[in-house]
Structures are given as structure tokens and as C-alpha cells.
């Protein structure tokens, strides 16, 4: 008897057919209803939280007369910063410090840069001894929830399929391993797959020391995702998705970095005549420096840019490093990327 036949016999003995009982179905149905209602409640809570944020923001703004919860900066085109303090999801003892970070959604056929202020409890299964991995997990989980508030008002959408869950995040060297549920692969064509990957990769690579992201599905290192077979066998970087990037992408500094006089702002851009401008703003939004450089390519091609910015301050303070371009038609600012940093003398 061959190994194959032995296997068939062995497995055949285990495979006697039977049907589940009505009692088993009833027990299952109760649990399934619970799962279904939990999902629906989470969606409803998200909507309520959004309403709460809007109401809270309106009341706060009226009370203080402020127009922005953070130091003012040139208003990003089509996006806005949003202050959200989401309720802890599960375990109160695993927390991520409140910070302003990038959430990469989609506007038109391009990634849309914006930042959000948030922090708080993180799901117990995403807690990590590695603070960078834990912070990244918090924000990627936030990204999977889709745009809210100001993001929605700006017309941002997400192409990450509803129901996609973050199963885990870990860091190995400069690569962040992001484990997503199988829903991430569902629906959409090649472009949708690319853009949803770009959303995760751009959000994941904003954190200190993280240069690339390796996508995993249901705990597996996969070589490709979706029916379109988009290759993910290697760690992905922001530059792998230039087709969907905004016209200016800042790679350094990163949100929360310290930035001192002479420090370099760098990235890549595809802008008119390759001209990229920069501002350094203090905590009150006052302009500390204004400069520009020429990327290595422009007007239809991607080029790298790098510029050391000189400015003067007396004491450490929150501030922003802004990269932008000015319209060739009317000189108005556009393509703005405003990175929140800690300015240090």
C-alpha cells in the first residue's frame, strides 16, 4: 500500500460525515450575533466619537477663540490637522503617549498627507516592549479605522477594505513588520492594492528608525497580495509608491524629531522646475526661516532634495518644518507638508 493510500485510509476514517445539531447552531448563533453587534457598535461608536470631536472642538474654539489646537502653520492643501483622544480600546495599562503623527489617506488618486493628534490606550494584543513598534501599532490601527472628522471634511478616503484588522506589529532593524488580516487583500484592482499598501507603508515609515515596512497577512510572510498579485516579498519603502505620492514627500525630519539650526530637511518631489521651498515656524507659527532648493529632477520626474536650514531660537520649543511649492500661476502656496518637530537651539 502506498503512502498516499495509507493517508487516504487514515484520513477517511476520521472523516465520517455528520451535521451540527440545532443546539450547536443556537449556541453558535448567540456568539455570532455578539460578534456582529460588536462590529456594528464599534462602527456606531466611531460615528459618535466623530460627532463628539466636532462638538467638543466647536465648544473649545468658541471658548478660547483659537483657530487651531496646535501651533498654526500654513493650512495644508485639502487636509487639516485633527485633535482626537480616542477612548482606550481594551487594556488601560498599555498606552501610547499623545503625539501628532501622519495618517496617510487618499484624495483623488494620490496619497493625502495630514496629521492627527492622538494617544491613549492600545489593544492588549498590540502592546509591545518596543516603544516604536507599539507607537506604530497604535497609529496603523488608527489608520485602519478610516478617515474621521477633518480628514473626511477634506474629502479623504481610505482604500483599505473595511474589516481589515491589525494583528501585530514588530520591528527588526529598520523594517517594521505589519501583520494584517486577510480582509486587507479583498476587493479592488491593482491600483487599489498599490494605494492601500502605500497608505500602510507611508504611515508605518514615519517612526524613528523605520525605513521600510514588510506586509504580512494572517501571520504569514506573503510574496504577493490580492488577485492582482502585487509583489510584497521585500520590505517596501515610500519610494516604491511614488506614482501615488503627493508632489512633495519629506523623509527627514520625522514627526517629533528634534530639529536644530543647520539640520537638513530632505525628501523627494515632482514639482514645477524642481523648486522646493521651506519654512521653519516657531511654536506661535512665526516664521523663523525661509529657504528653497532645487530637486535633482522636476516638472514630470521625481528628484531628491536636501537642504540645511538656518534659524535662531533661544529655547527649545515645539515648531514645524514646512516643505511646499508656490503656484507658477498666482504664487499661492501648495503641496505643503508640515512636519511637527521640537526646535532645539
Amino acid at each position, binding site marked *: 500500500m502506498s503512502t498516499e493510500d495509507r*493517508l487516504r485510509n487514515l*484520513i477517511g476514517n476520521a472523516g465520517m460525515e455528520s451535521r451540527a445539531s440545532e443546539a450547536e*447552531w443556537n449556541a453558535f448563533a448567540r456568539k455570532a450575533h455578539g460578534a456582529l453587534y460588536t462590529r456594528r457598535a464599534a462602527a456606531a461608536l466611531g460615528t459618535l466619537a466623530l460627532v463628539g470631536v466636532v462638538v467638543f472642538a466647536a465648544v473649545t474654539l468658541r471658548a478660547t477663540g483659537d483657530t487651531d489646537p496646535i501651533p498654526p502653520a500654513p493650512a495644508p492643501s485639502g487636509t487639516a490637522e485633527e485633535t482626537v483622544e480616542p477612548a482606550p480600546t481594551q487594556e488601560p495599562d498599555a498606552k501610547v503617549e499623545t503625539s501628532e503623527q501622519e495618517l496617510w489617506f487618499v484624495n483623488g488618486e494620490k496619497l493625502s498627507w495630514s496629521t492627527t493628534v492622538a494617544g491613549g490606550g492600545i489593544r492588549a494584543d498590540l502592546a509591545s516592549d518596543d516603544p516604536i513598534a507599539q507607537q506604530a501599532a497604535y497609529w496603523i490601527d488608527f489608520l485602519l479605522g478610516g478617515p474621521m472628522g477633518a480628514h473626511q471634511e477634506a474629502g479623504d478616503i481610505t482604500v483599505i477594505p473595511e*474589516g481589515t484588522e491589525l*494583528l501585530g506589529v514588530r520591528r527588526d532593524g529598520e523594517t517594521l513588520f505589519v501583520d494584517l488580516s486577510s480582509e486587507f487583500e479583498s476587493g479592488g484592482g491593482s491600483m487599489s492594492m498599490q494605494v492601500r499598501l502605500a497608505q500602510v507603508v507611508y504611515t508605518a515609515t514615519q517612526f524613528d528608525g523605520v525605513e521600510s515596512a514588510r506586509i504580512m497577512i494572517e*501571520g*504569514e510572510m506573503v510574496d504577493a497580495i490580492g488577485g492582482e498579485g502585487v509583489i510584497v516579498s521585500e520590505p517596501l519603502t515610500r519610494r516604491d509608491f511614488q506614482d501615488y505620492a503627493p508632489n512633495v514627500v519629506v523623509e527627514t525630519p520625522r514627526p517629533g524629531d528634534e530639529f536644530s539650526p543647520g539640520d537638513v530637511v530632505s525628501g523627494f518631489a515632482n514639482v514645477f522646475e524642481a523648486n522646493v521651498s521651506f519654512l521653519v515656524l516657531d511654536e506661535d507659527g512665526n516664521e523663523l526661516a525661509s529657504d528653497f532648493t532645487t530637486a535633482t529632477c522636476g516638472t514630470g520626474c521625481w528628484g531628491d532634495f536636501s537642504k540645511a536650514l538656518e534659524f535662531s531660537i533661544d529655547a527649545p520649543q515645539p515648531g514645524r518644518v514646512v516643505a511646499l511649492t508656490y503656484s507658477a500661476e498666482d504664487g499661492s502656496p501648495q503641496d505643503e507638508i508640515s512636519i511637527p518637530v521640537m526646535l532645539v537651539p
Partner: protein
Amino acid sequence: MRTRNRDAEFRDFYLAEAPRLQRLAVMMTGDPERAADLAQDALIKVYTKWPRIRNEDPGPYARTILVNLCRSAYRRKMLEMRKTPVSSGYIPDQSSRVDDSLRVATALSALSPIRKAVVLLRFYEDMSEQQIATVLDRPINTIKSDLRRALETLRPIFGDDVRETR
């Protein structure tokens, strides 16, 4: 989709498929208790996605989810599973009162989770290599290779000689 309508449609699927999925999970994991949880988790995922998949054949989708859950559970429990007896030299004891599904799990425990899944989908679910490739989202040539290597691994465990070829 209203819950009542969802239940009415899903009930038939559950009654027919739940025991089979649970046995598949037992054979994948060798742990009846964990298998019951994994099968239930897979069925709940199918249930919550039902409006999107009801018009297709939900059976393969359920097996995809279950295999992925089993593989994830394997990784989490790898250390624990390493402590289980190695099956090399195991000869199935047909007279044993041990559950048949567990006997299969023990016989297959020398295989990696993915090859175990390939073997079970082939010989338990009677799927074609192409169907297995679809469920596991792997190239068909990889499935053929997995199957061949799985049988090579199992051959000495079953006490067979090496005359077979595929």
C-alpha cells in the same frame, strides 16, 4: 442585511460545514479544544462577511480562513508544540480508541502547517491541486511541490519503502 435573513441563510451552511471544519482544525492542530475555538472563530468571520460572500461558494473561503487561523495559532504555540512527541516512526494503531482525527494529527505532526494543510485539503477535502492553490493562495507548482515533499516526509513515518514516485 438583516440578522434574521443572515441567520436563515447561514444556518444551513453552519449545520453542514461546522463539524467538518472542526475536524479539519483538529487534524491541523492536534488539539481538540483549540480546534473548536479556531473553527468557531473561522465560522464567525464567515458569518460577519456573509453578505459579501453568500453568492459565491463560501466553503473554500471558510477553509482559507481556518487554515490561516491554524497557521497563526501554530506560530503562537510553536514553543508549546515543540514539546509534543515527535512522530517519527509513528505507526497508526487502528485498534486504538484515540479519536481518529487526533491520530491523523499525530501522523501529520512532522509536517509544517502549510504542508499539513495541503495534505488535508487534498485527502480530506478531496480538493484538486488547483482548488488547493486557490484556497491557500499559492502557485499550483508550489502546491505540487508541497504535496510531493509532504509524502516524502510521511513515507518513513508510515513505514513505507521508497519505491513510490509521483
